[in-house]
């Protein structure tokens, strides 16, 4: 296609440093992360303050005491959330990672993640790594005990470090490469094979006609 387009520079994400945010619980679905009624907008703007809205706010707007609003976790700047199993299950809404990102959560460490949510995070340059259940538990305890430290996620070394302790985390080779090379935004890569796409399309009976 010889496309000329003004895509942003490749942005490498070799590591993320931020205050920790422990979000305990299995199967935290995207309806909880961002309720559907907040998706009635044609941009992602303003989603940050609505992250986990119904878990955080009562009907009258008062705080319910969710961990995100606990004074000891109140900090400015980037955060890294630590979660349990199957985080982000349910709807494919990219509003979920967008809400987390805009609230300040720039990376996620957890036991496991739902597939579509995982892909949506990576497509936004938001690292998501997994760790053994025991590691996650140790990390959560260390954070809850003493939250006022920075957590460092090193994508290259596949480690996370908190209060001087370093733990191993897992990230597939391909995803690690995407984050390190800054090729996590797939559009540019996909567009570079326009001729091959045409060929594939032309080989399909339902495209060329039966």
């Amino acid at each position, binding site marked *: 296609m010889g496309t000329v387009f003004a895509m942003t520079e490749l942005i490498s994400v070799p590591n993320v440093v931020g205050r920790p945010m422990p979000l305990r619980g299995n199967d935290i679905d995207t309806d909880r992360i961002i309720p559907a009624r907040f998706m009635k907008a044609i941009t992602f703007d303003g989603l940050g303050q609505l992250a986990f809205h119904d878990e955080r706010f009562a009907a009258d707007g008062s705080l319910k005491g969710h961990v995100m609003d606990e004074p000891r976790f109140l900090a400015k700047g980037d955060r890294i959330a630590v979660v349990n199993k199957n985080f982000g299950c349910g709807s494919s809404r990219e509003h979920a990672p967008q809400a987390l990102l805009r609230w300040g959560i720039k990376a996620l460490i957890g036991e496991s993640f739902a597939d579509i949510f995982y892909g949506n995070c990576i497509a*936004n340059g938001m690292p998501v790594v997994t760790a053994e259940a025991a590691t996650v538990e140790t990390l959560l305890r260390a954070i809850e005990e003493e939250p006022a430290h920075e957590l460092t996620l090193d994508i290259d070394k596949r480690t996370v470090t908190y209060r001087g302790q370093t733990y191993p985390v897992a990230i597939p080779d391909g995803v690690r*490469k995407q984050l390190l090379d800054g090729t996590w935004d797939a559009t540019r890569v996909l567009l570079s094979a326009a001729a091959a796409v045409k060929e*594939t399309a032309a080989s399909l009976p339902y495209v060329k006609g039966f």
Partner: protein
Amino acid sequence: MAKTLFDKVWQAHAVRELPSGQTQLFIGLHLVHEVTSPQAFQMLREDSLGVPYPDRTLATVDHIIPTDTDMRPFDDEQAEGMMSAIEKNCAEFGIRLLDRKSGSQGIVHVIGPELGLTQPGMTIACGDSHTSTHGAFGAIAFGIGTSQVRDVLASQCLAIVKPKLRRIEVEGTLPPGVYAKDVILHIIRVLGVQGGVGYAYEFAGAVFDRMTMEERMTVCNMSIEGGARCGYVNPDQTTFDYLRGRRYAPQGEEFDRAVAWWQQTASEPGAAYDDVAKIDGSRLAPVITWGINPGQAIGVDEKIPGVADFAADERQTVEDAHAYMGWTPGQSVIGTKIDVAFIGSCTNGRISDLREAARVAALGKVKANVTALVVPGSQDVARQAEAEGLPEIFRAAGFEWRLPGCSMCLAMNPDKLVGNQVCASSSNRNFKGRQGSPSGRTLLMSPAMVAAAAIEGAVTDLREMLR
């Protein structure tokens, strides 16, 4: 070597392997709706990208659309904004939009199949997790996020890792009062809401062989609730018979040639799978969810399980579900009072669902204090139902008959639960707050079970009623 449908279709659509370990996969059919697309179109504009294959994308409006009026502008300004955005985006990028004026509007996963757009051997994507529905035809159908909607618009491709494949065989004969919905709720209960992560599901066995296309769609629809990336059924005569004569299906001799190709795409005997699960369909009862995810389900005649019935790492979610839903472990779900009954959604808003529900609705009247809604999945479904006199049956029984859309499945339009109302729902998600009220409670079940609950004013064992 014997191959699976999944392998063959994947291979036919693979453009190349990417350095990231993903495959660049050509997408044969892209479906778009108003909620997950506006940001994608905006990204195209920002990056000066076009849509090279506009004919391979089709748009409709379903999520925010009111079901009680066609009047524009909508009362809800934000909804009107989303509606205008998709109209503008489709016009600008040359994409067909099926709105209410077209007469073919409906829930995206209902109209694709009924228009004959969804066909065996295709790859399909849509910015909606229930895209797995289309797998009922032997297509590989992925729900995607908004960045990927942009990717497909801009390149007609997805960058995606090939999932593993699990075959789920359901043998035997379903007892009366047990539907496709019960089959998939049972599968999710057994394999878990995380059981499918990293997998595609192939559904097979005698129960699937006998199912109609609409029943297969109900099952494939909820693959995602079991964590699977997609789900499919191999195409067979039932599939071909369904497709013949549909608007966008091949016509005449082309159709016969298409059938020959479709047959070749099916999984071959002896093909290898990463995993196989077997289920005896003869032993199933009507299934109902009691918790806050679709895996927290029981047979309607079972008791609410206690925390000790679950593995250690599930107990927190179980406690959470007991508290949110207001259960005491050991209690029966039968007799649980409901406030709202919802029949509709991309899981169970098709004509056969409405027929089954109407059959039950004809047996009585909706209990006072229960609000009961029937929302057809599409304008086509509505027309067919009207031709069969179903709206009269529903209205006579006290149900409201609405215009097509997603409605109370996710409550982005005015149809919502209030406070901690309990809703018997034929939809697919019982997540906290899913039906529009942060404390609203959802019990998922088959449409016939919903109709029965509406009449009794409480959860009931449909089998008793049919006896």
